[in-house]
């Protein structure tokens, strides 16, 4: 049976069991954190760095967690912030024509064995890459993870109304591109 958030927090708050508690936190949430980051940054090595950074920051800031939301929402907030900051930094480098990260991600998809040569999945992933990062995030959280708009709002700090509009727009765009191919 999976350990609860409260049990994890109790372990972490006790200095003698902090490490054990934090390991439990990683065990419970590592896959979800990794995948939400990976969907945004595409490349495994980048996702790995950012996942580790997420948990390291969580370790150092767990004392600020106020239990108003669940650990999942809190971790996702850190993870998505890490991923979006990373992509924003890469985009700014491109302004100086030094590094087209968008092209790098598309090339990674082309050569990725993870898609098992599935042409439809490849086209879908490339279509998703055409969306602005934050819209892509909202799409993934709603479409793939089936989170409620309230949960997404807590993670992104965006209003429910704006999220609904963003998601609806993303779906229309994707459907349009897929239909035209």
């Amino acid at each position, binding site marked *: 049976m999976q350990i609860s958030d409260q049990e994890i927090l109790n372990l972490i708050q006790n200095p003698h069991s902090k490490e054990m508690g934090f390991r439990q936190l990683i065990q419970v949430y590592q896959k979800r954190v990794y995948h939400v980051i*990976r969907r945004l940054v595409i490349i495994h090595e980048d996702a790995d760095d950012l996942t580790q950074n997420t948990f390291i920051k969580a370790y150092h*800031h767990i004392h600020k967690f106020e239990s*108003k939301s669940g650990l999942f929402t809190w971790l996702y907030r850190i993870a998505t912030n890490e991923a979006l*900051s990373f992509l924003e930094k890469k985009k700014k480098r491109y302004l*100086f024509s*030094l590094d087209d990260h968008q092209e790098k991600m598309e090339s990674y998809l082309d050569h990725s064995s993870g*898609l098992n040569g599935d042409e439809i999945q490849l086209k879908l992933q490339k279509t998703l890459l055409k969306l602005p990062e934050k819209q892509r995030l909202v799409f993934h959280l709603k479409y793939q993870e089936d989170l409620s708009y309230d949960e997404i709002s807590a993670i992104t700090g965006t209003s429910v109304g704006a999220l609904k509009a963003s998601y609806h727009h993303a779906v229309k765009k994707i459907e349009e591109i897929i239909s035209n191919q």
Partner: protein
Amino acid sequence: MSVIPPIQPFKEPKGYFEDLPDQIMARVQSKTDYSWIKWAAVAIIALSVGIYTFLPQSKTDEYLVLDNQVNLYIDANYWTAEDILSMSDNPDELLEGIIEEEFPVVDELWDTEDQNLYEL
């Protein structure tokens, strides 16, 4: 009904999640307190600036002329940003510095007084 097919998750390398907790804990435990180094660095920089400011300048006329020429080329748009970066020994380092200066990265959210990111 949406025409968007189900999206397959990316596959991670074999054994990745078995090793990840150990890697993270190793990094967490190896972080020591480097705040004294920060203060030492600040002191060294302050001392260097002080020495540079108050000691007599030894720049030759030749370098002064060169500086003026470089500025003329930049002001006249004869050299672009890419030209300047390509002429430098460490374009990546130079670029990182410019980006940090002109576009402060959101990274700083996590170690400032930002109430929103960690207080949920």
